[in-house]
């Protein structure tokens, strides 16, 4: 059961429900201490409750209300106080009400950001009653900042803290392995991100084994889930990508978690981050060894391209053939000149035999290269088409023009020209020479 306020865009798995009895006994109170509650609604003075009894009735009423056992609430933090034991006490308030709240030591350690007075937060937990002080308290188990102001404040605080520790230093960045044998992917196991990454890796570098480490990628449980997935996968791969598709500030918040950032920084293998869209920069992006603008780009950055590899292999093959031909030709000319003097039939026969070996090998080489190029022709042609689309000449064919100075340099801004300047306007079939009349920015 969840109570929520204006948080429609924020969804996440609920925390595990807390067994009320175990909570009660864990606090060292005697759960067998039964209370005699009078049945009559109008109690006679002789049947008056003790204060303790009343407090317990209140407590039991609160504890047995399922609405209060698992609450999601949004409010502003105020009166923040840290107790020496590490518990954090504060009030959650809105314009017309406030609820006394506490974040216990262990939950405070896992929060992933620092609470501040005035911060708008979204908190999950349960409500309980403390008879000794007569207070009703909201026990916060997990929270995230809510609203742009709160996100920004928490983000800046974590960023400054980790930057001061040197976790973002360029010297810490490790190079990616050029030929990864095993690639770890920490992300949600459903959705477009994992599909895109696997598809691109299959096309570019099918030699690699891809290991998916599933994780929650949003909500209060996400940082711990991401840390666990990273810890599971880091010993099994040569490189890891931590990825998530685009989303709201709230959705991406888990990638600003301090604990996750530290786990990325101390990962045993290089980490590529790919969170949200290009404009989204999270704390994890700062600590990663390489930040990719998108998950698809991450897949491309961490894999060699099979086509480029074929080109390299073929280049080496051509060098082999060219060099051995030179060596044979050289040997032949030496043998010929020798032969003119000695007529060594034996040497000549040996040379012919060697040439036969070479021709056979060369035939095989050509055959393989032809087949491989044919196999990849579609991809090569697709790439060529893409290059053509991107070329400025393709743009000209669509009816656009490029303004150039007489020397051929491109004019990109009005500020670069003055009235009277001579320019050439390049169209798809040639140039028109013009003079600037007037600037009109």
């Amino acid at each position, binding site marked *: 059961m969840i109570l929520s306020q204006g948080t429609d865009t924020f969804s996440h798995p609920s925390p595990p429900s807390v067994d009320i009895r175990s909570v009660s006994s864990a606090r060292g109170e005697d759960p067998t201490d039964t209370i005699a509650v009078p049945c009559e609604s109008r109690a006679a003075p002789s049947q008056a409750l003790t204060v303790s009894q009343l407090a317990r009735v209140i407590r039991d009423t609160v504890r047995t209300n399922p609405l209060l056992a698992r609450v999601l609430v949004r409010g502003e933090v105020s009166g923040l106080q840290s107790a020496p034991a590490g518990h954090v006490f504060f009030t959650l308030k809105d314009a017309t009400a406030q609820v006394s709240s506490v974040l216990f030591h262990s939950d405070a350690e896992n929060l992933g950001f620092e609470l501040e007075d005035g911060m708008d937060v979204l908190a999950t937990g349960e409500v309980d009653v403390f008879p000794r002080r007569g207070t009703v308290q909201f026990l916060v188990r997990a929270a995230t900042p809510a609203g742009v102001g709160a996100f920004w404040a928490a983000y800046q605080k974590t960023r400054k803290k980790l930057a001061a520790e040197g976790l973002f230093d360029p010297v810490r960045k490790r190079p990616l392995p*050029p*030929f990864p*044998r095993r690639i770890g992917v920490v992300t949600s*196991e*459903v959705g477009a991100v*994992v*599909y895109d990454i*696997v*598809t691109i*890796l*299959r096309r570019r570098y*099918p*030699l*690699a*084994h*891809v*290991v*998916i*480490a*599933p994780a929650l990628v949003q909500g209060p449980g996400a940082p711990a889930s991401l840390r666990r*997935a990273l810890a*599971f*996968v880091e010993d*099994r791969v040569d490189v890891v990508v931590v990825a998530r598709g685009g989303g709201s500030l709230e959705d991406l918040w888990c990638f600003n978690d301090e604990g996750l950032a530290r786990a990325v920084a101390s990962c045993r293998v290089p980490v590529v981050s790919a969170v949200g869209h290009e404009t989204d920069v999270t704390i994890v992006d700062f600590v990663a060894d390489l930040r990719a603008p998108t998950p698809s780009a991450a897949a491309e950055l961490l894999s060699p391209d*099979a086509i480029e*590899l*074929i080109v*390299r*292999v073929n280049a*080496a*093959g051509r*060098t*082999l*053939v060219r*060099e*051995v031909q*030179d*060596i*044979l030709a050289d*040997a032949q000319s030496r043998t010929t000149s020798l032969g003119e003097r000695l007529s060594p039939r034996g040497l000549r026969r040996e040379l012919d035999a*060697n040439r036969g*070996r*070479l021709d056979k*090998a060369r035939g*095989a*080489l050509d055959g*393989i*290269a032809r087949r*491989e190029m044919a*196999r990849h022709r579609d991809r090569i042609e697709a790439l060529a088409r893409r290059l053509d689309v991107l070329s400025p000449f393709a743009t000209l064919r669509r009816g656009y023009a490029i303004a150039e100075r007489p020397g051929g340099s491109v004019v990109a801004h009005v500020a670069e020209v003055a009235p009277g300047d001579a320019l050439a306007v390049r169209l798809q079939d040639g140039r028109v020479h013009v003079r600037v009349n007037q600037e009109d920015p």
Partner: protein
Amino acid sequence: MTEEASFEESIGSLEAKAEALSQGDLPLERALAVFEEGLALYRRCHAMLAEAEQRVTKLVATADGLTEEPFDPGT
């Protein structure tokens, strides 16, 4: 070259053979041997790229620890 040589090792050896031949100071018999080793590596590199089928697995935490099972990302 062992059967387990990775693509990285194979392409590295292939390029080393090409480089060795380019130096031009090998005796004829040795040069031909290097050429044939290079040709075998060349075939091997092409075959590895042509025959590779990507393995995709998913990590699953079980009572006995972590296991990997086949994974299909769907569409």
